[in-house]
């Protein structure tokens, strides 16, 4: 039996997946509703496979995957999602989970993906693969970051506030805000926290 941990906060999905995995080679060991619970249960339950929702109430499922990837060994992971933004798709691709399935695809694809992943293969939902290709093309054609924008991202990464960044760069706080919004648009991130967390990955592109 393959030990499975489900990380999803929606009761309908959790109950349905519980039913789907009944009388299969998969044993559903537990369910986590938040990123914090997921991290704890991965350590305590030691599942072979984690079905991980991308949208969790307290953090992104991608953050959970990033934390697991930093550990010495991690269980195989299938990302479950009802939809991702371009930036999330690219991050997910970089984090290289073993599988990715759209919740809105044919439900039989999930078991197909699980079987493939357990067999040691990589399985990506065709629709996600196509969207990722499009996101990569859009990212490649996006305007490059200027030297000043890269400087500003580095200062955001260091945790500096706008006022301190303005003092550091010798500009006004308003100018910093304008720069930040331009960077958010270019990199398709929503806020400075996401920018700080993903600075390395975004600037290296």
């Amino acid at each position, binding site marked *: 039996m393959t030990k499975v941990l489900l990380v999803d906060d929606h009761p309908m999905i959790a109950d349905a997946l519980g*039913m789907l995995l009944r*009388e299969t080679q998969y044993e559903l060991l537990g369910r986590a509703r938040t990123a914090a619970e997921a991290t704890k249960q991965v350590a305590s339950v030691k599942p072979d496979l984690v079905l991980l929702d991308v949208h969790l109430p307290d953090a992104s499922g991608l953050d959970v995957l990033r934390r697991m990837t930093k550990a010495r060994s991690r269980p195989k992971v299938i990302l479950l999602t009802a939809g991702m933004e371009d930036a999330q798709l690219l991050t997910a691709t970089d984090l290289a989970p073993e599988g990715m399935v759209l919740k809105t695809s044919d439900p039989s694809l999930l078991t197909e993906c699980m079987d493939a992943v357990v067999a040691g293969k990589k399985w990506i939902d065709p629709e996600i693969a196509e969207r990722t290709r499009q996101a990569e093309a859009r990212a490649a054609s996006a305007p490059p970051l200027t030297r000043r924008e890269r400087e500003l991202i580095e200062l955001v990464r260091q945790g500096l506030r706008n006022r301190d960044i303005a003092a550091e760069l010798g500009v006004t706080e308003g100018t910093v805000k304008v720069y930040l919004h331009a960077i958010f648009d270019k990199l398709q991130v929503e806020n400075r926290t996401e920018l700080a967390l993903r600075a390395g990955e975004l600037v290296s592109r």
Partner: protein
Amino acid sequence: MLGGCFLRELTALQGLFKYQSGRVIALGRVMLAILFLLALFLDRTEPVRAILGTYLLLSLYAFGAIGIAVATWRNWWLDARLAVPMHAIDMAVFTAIVFSTNGSTSPFFLFFVLPLLSAAIRWGWRETAFTATSLVVLYMGAGLLLARTQNFELERFVIRSGHLVILSLLLIWFGIHQRSTLFFLREDFDSSVGEGDNALARALGFAIDVAGASGGALMVAPTGEEPLDGLALSRGEQRTFSLQRSIVRSHGYSSFLYDTARNRVVTRLPEGRFHFAAAADWLDIDSGFPAVARRGLAAEVHTGTQQGWLLLWGISDLSTDFIEFGRELGRASGAILDRNALLQAIEMGAAARTRLSLARDVHDSIVQFLAGAAFRVEAIKRGAKSGTVVQTELDELKRLLVEEQGEIRGFLLALRRDRELDIADAVAELRALAERLGQQWSIDCRVSADGEKGAIPIRLQLDLQQMLREAVANAVRHGGAKRVDVDLAVSDNRLQLRVADNGTGFANNKGQPPAEPWSLKERVERAHGSLELVSKPGSTNILISLPLAGAAA
């Protein structure tokens, strides 16, 4: 009654001299000339020399002053044209008076004040300083000429010189600062800024009202482009127009008076002096405008992203003061356009946030539900294949689908409604939702309301429904509650929601502070509300307070 009459008279008098510095100067000159003539006539000791010449000069001056006042009363062009010559005459008369009168009774001082004050009012500090210096030099020159005569009093001459210098400095200061005076009140401006209406009409209407014009036009275009499209308002009628070419060529001046019938334009140089030009070089008002539009005020308008021109016509008492006034009107009209654009952006931002919020709700509830339902169908299908009895599971799925259908119907109904919903209807919907949640979680869930009068924004109702779902889910999942009571009340323009359950609460066994229902808290914060949690074993109270005014519909 008497007070009312007096107030009306006073207001009429005020209107006669409002924005009419040329008129005030001309009238002051007339009164001064007549008064001086009268003073000399009554005082037998003056003038001390050139008696006939002095009387003749003053009589001519008085008649001339009356003539100038009459001629320039409603003629801004003549007023501007004669400003410098009359200033020189005022100074010359001052010198003559100093020369011909000398005793302690000489009222020459008033003749010193007139040109100095005129320069300070009409022009800037440079002209005032020039006038003051000239007058002091002329005074001293006349004094020196008289120094050898018997009537000359050195002590009085020195004291008077000191007075002239002090007064000069005061009026130079006045000349520096008088141009920064606001022509209209801030309330006039604030009342003309609002949401929704045509911003051009608001800005133009404001300018017409404040200037007392009978009509006007406002043309704007993105910065760098010629302002060809605009709006005209004349005697209450509003029309948009589109021009073939720009009708104003300002030559770098931001405000000017024009009279195309007489081919005249007057504006001011930055230092305050008048500049005259031919209207044909500055304006091209075609037949699309009323005849009255051929004489008026033109002012440049700038906004953050646009620039253009404001034309005002039919101003009954147009004067050279309107050149400066026009600059302010142009700035104020630009500010009205900017503020309207800002309000529009805020509205659009609120609408975008509402759309995003609705999309999130649809994603969190409907999309997830349908995905879950599809997984269930797949599970049932596989169960049926392997011979499992699936009747119970099908019944359960049917029940869930019917419930969700109700939820979606409520959601769509809310979207179709206007911006607000009666509290009574909102409570009825929450009661229906509470019943469904009770069935879903196998608990007793009830909603009560304290007063059901008033209305709440639709966005808030959608938030309330989601908050109720999350609060009930928390109570059952974390506290194992069997009963949830929801109280709703409106007070001080805030919606107060109390969710009480009989579960074990958020408090943990180690006696540490209770964990917070972060998901619920996040939703409350997004609605600009506050959340308070009072939790102990056997009872949990969540108190949510949401603003009614700030919630976007």
